[in-house]
């Protein structure tokens, strides 16, 4: 992005202070994530799309791994002509990121030459490379699943000794931990292997549509490109299937609002038809319940498999829908035919055969890349991430058992370096018979950091820092975060006119609805949503899909019209406005609001 200094400016990073009393928690983050004086020269924005809540010391591993991989793909693998990777900093638990634009024309030309040899090869061999990608991802998942359970026996098992294994159990703690961490970093490389190229091909078509039809809505372009069979829709489809099976097996009355999953399952076990349903459930769970109630970037975004209350809570609604005669299978053929009709209708409106030929070229490419754009999330952010955090949780349980801290979950308040140190501490203690040093050290630190996270969550943080660039032409930032110069104007204006009762965002899914706003800041609050409420959150998430059958509309702070949230909202026919920047700050829980998803406007009515 351009670094030209504009008179308009967000607060400088140096003016943003660490909240009093949390300095030590802030210092725990690695040195390379801390703001420094030079950072005042650059523009940063709060990545509330991916990291809407303060990040614990361990969870920042996600930022490290993701930006290492994103940057490598952009800078070194595909050689994007005009941008390198993303820089990131953390303050008060909030992750700020900044682009790294290439502006020298000679350098752009040099990188363009590389790009065309690399990226074009990917586009040309997209299907085979993507098929290969799925195999690589599944292999990575199987490897992570196959990592042994952690154990520190009093004596090394006799068969290990007799087999001459030679390596004692304590070593495998380090081995498994490093493999776990390594796997996570590796997964993020897979994640970004195609992503920017996929978004770029999509944006190429998007850009054309916006030029040819300046008033076309983002969502209409999205509808022309979106596929229908991506993995990300499957978990929700499985729930519909299970609702239908529950009725067929005559066990549907057990699923009532407020019923505890464990109780339901116990009752089911006692009958033949109940057991049959449980078999169906088991089939759905592997792998489709490996979906997080979040984006998978926080350790507490547990999967449906880990916590069945989310999927179970939505079953009564689905069962009611089936009984009301609603067709449960998504009509794929019909949706595809509608998509084709839409493409043809817009094609007909173009001005010349020349334009139509260019349009055809671009939409073909967009369709080619889109299965990856839609499909990768399930494997990466959901399935693999669950495995990762759960394995770390195992280490947490082990360390907690040795008194390092009270609860297994406390491990997430150590950095990944500190976790390794604690593991080596435990390995040493097990080996030499002395007590570990950790128990005396970590509990107060964990408590201090927990308190800091809670404190940070109570404070708002500026949406951006530093001088406003004249233009944002970093394709990565535009593509992944939907941040444009116009967005920034809106954010700046929001700071100037706090009393306006209108909030503007991207029109993600059309329709107009009035309702009570439920401002949901963390996933834990999802169960506060009642039928007919309007969900107001930092980022609407596709894995919240079951929530969408309950709510009347959705509003989010950040997100583009291609976010999965927007796609799910359109599927459910709910109005949605995304990328408002400030909705969760401006709208108070319980207020009556109107969501106009066609115009991208939210109005506070009272």
């Amino acid at each position, binding site marked *: 992005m351009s670094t030209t200094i504009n008179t308009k400016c967000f607060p400088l990073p140096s003016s943003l202070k660490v909240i009093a009393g949390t300095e030590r928690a802030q210092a725990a983050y690695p040195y390379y994530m801390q703001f420094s004086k030079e950072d005042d020269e650059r523009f940063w924005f709060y990545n509330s799309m991916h990291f809407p809540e303060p990040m614990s010391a361990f969870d920042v591993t996600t930022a490290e791994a993701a930006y290492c991989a994103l940057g490598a793909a952009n800078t070194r693998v595909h050689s*994007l*002509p*005009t941008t390198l990777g993303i820089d990131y900093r953390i303050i008060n638990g909030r992750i700020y990121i900044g682009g790294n634009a*290439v502006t020298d024309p000679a350098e*752009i030309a040099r990188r*363009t030459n590389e*790009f*065309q040899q690399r*990226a*074009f090869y990917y*586009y*040309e061999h997209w299907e085979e490379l993507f098929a290969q990608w799925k195999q690589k991802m599944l292999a990575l998942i199987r490897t992570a699943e196959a990592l042994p359970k952690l154990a520190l026996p009093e004596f090394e098992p006799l068969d290990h000794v007799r087999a001459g294994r030679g390596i004692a159990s304590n070593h495998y703690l380090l081995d498994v931990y490093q493999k776990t961490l390594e796997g996570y970093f590796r997964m993020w490389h897979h994640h970004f292997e195609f992503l920017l*190229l996929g978004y*770029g*091909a999509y*944006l*190429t078509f998007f*850009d*054309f549509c916006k*030029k*040819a*039809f*300046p*008033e*076309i*809505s983002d969502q*209409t372009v999205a509808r022309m490109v979106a596929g229908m069979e991506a993995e990300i829709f499957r978990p929700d489809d499985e729930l519909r299937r299970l609702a239908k099976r529950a009725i067929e097996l005559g066990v549907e009355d057990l699923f009532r609002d407020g019923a505890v999953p464990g109780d339901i399952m116990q009752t089911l076990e006692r009958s033949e038809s109940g057991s049959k349903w449980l078999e169906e459930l088991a089939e759905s769970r592997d792998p489709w319940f490996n979906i997080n109630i979040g984006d998978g970037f926080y350790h507490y975004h547990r999967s449906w498999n880990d916590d069945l209350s989310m999927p179970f809570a939505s079953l009564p609604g689905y069962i009611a829908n089936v009984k009301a005669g609603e067709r449960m299978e998504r009509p794929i053929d019909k949706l595809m035919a509608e998509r084709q009709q*839409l493409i043809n*209708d*817009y094609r007909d*409106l*173009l*001005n*010349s055969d*020349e*334009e139509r*030929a*260019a*349009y*055809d*070229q*671009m939409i*073909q*490419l967009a369709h080619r890349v889109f299965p990856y754009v839609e499909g990768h999330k399930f494997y990466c952010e959901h399935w693999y991430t669950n495995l990762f955090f759960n394995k770390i949780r195992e280490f947490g349980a082990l360390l907690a058992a040795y008194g390092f801290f009270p609860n297994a979950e406390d491990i997430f308040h150590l950095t990944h370096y500190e976790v390794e140190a604690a593991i080596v501490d435990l390995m040493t203690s097990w080996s030499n018979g002395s007590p570990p040093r950790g128990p005396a050290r970590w509990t107060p630190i964990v408590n201090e950091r927990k308190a800091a996270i809670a404190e940070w969550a109570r404070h708002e943080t500026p949406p951006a820092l530093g001088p406003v660039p004249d233009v944002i*032409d970093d*394709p990565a930032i535009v*593509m992944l975060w939907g941040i444009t110069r116009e967005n920034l104007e809106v954010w700046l204006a929001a700071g100037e006119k706090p009393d306006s009762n209108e909030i503007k965002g991207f*029109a993600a899914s*059309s329709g107009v609805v009035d309702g009570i706003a439920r401002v949901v800041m963390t996933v834990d609050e999802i169960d506060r949503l009642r039928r007919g409420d309007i969900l107001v959150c930092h980022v609407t998430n596709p894995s919240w899909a079951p929530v969408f059958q309950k709510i009347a509309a959705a509003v989010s702070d950040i997100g583009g019209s291609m976010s999965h949230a927007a796609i799910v909202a359109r599927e459910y026919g709910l109005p949605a406005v995304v990328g408002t920047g400030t909705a969760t700050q401006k709208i108070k829980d319980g207020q009556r609001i109107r969501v106009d998803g*066609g*115009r991208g406007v939210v109005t506070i009515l009272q």
Partner: protein
Amino acid sequence: MHATANISWFADITLADCPMVGGKGGSLGELTRAGIAVPPGFVITTRGFEHVLAELEKQNPVRSRVDALSLQDLRGLRLLSQEVRARVKSAPLPPDVRADIVAAHAELCGPDLRWPLAVRSSATAEDSEEASFAGLQDTYLWVKGAEAVLEYVRSCWASLYSVPSMSYRRKDGTPENGVAIAVVVQKMVDARSAGVMFTRSPLTGDRSVITIESAWGLGSAVVSGEVTPDRFVIGKITGQISVRDISDKRIQHVPEENGGIKHIETPEALRGAPSINDGELKTLAEIGRKVERHYRRPQDIEWAIDRSGDIVLLQSRPETVWSEKDKAPVARPAPNPLEHVMNIFGGRR
């Protein structure tokens, strides 16, 4: 319906008849034949006008003197306009023209000979699109009775020699010899709401949207700019209403008891209320699409909704502003389709 050399009925007219019925008359006929609801009416062909003008030319030339006018000579323009208008208005109507108009009037009105009518100019010029003359000549609304029609027919003819009309033709260099004027006589619609519709965006040229402007009462208030209309934008393909600006419509044009129209203040409760409902918007947009398909190019349309909710079109002409800009394509096909992605990655935006 009785056609004569002086009278053509809408149902018999196509665009090919424009030299005789003018652009507006041709368009109304074309719409009628395309099955679009248009208030019924007939056109007094240019024959009557040519006849009257020929008589006037014998006394003192008209066309050659208009041709000779200089745009800079404002006084000359004004004086010639005054003279020719007065002469046209006072010239006696040829008896056959008069008889044909009276007969057609009776046929159009049926038993109620005081049925309110619109009398509208429909100018024509060789080698020139009607659109370029739009709005320059007079229109008379809520005209009642054959005598009043005869009077206003001559007023329409005379308006061909208004200062703005003549200046426009001089600026355009249109030779007077091809210039003539027909007159449309059409049943008036007691409009509850009326306005204009563009089958592409007047703001951005987008062909995928229809813009509809609407206000209470007769459309003349919208066309003349006396009221800020409600404004709606509807996706042609999606049917979505993406813009819905409801304005404060202080005044409206309504019929005067004894003919003509008057301005009244809009009742308080209606001022800020939408002057058209969503169902009507959708129907109107469908009509717009139908007309656009018929003409194979974006249209600029005047419409009205009567007191019973029926929609009629009063005019349709090709959109001219953006069609000029269409000539450069948004993109051309690339030898290697992948080159398109450089628009995003190459920093060329």
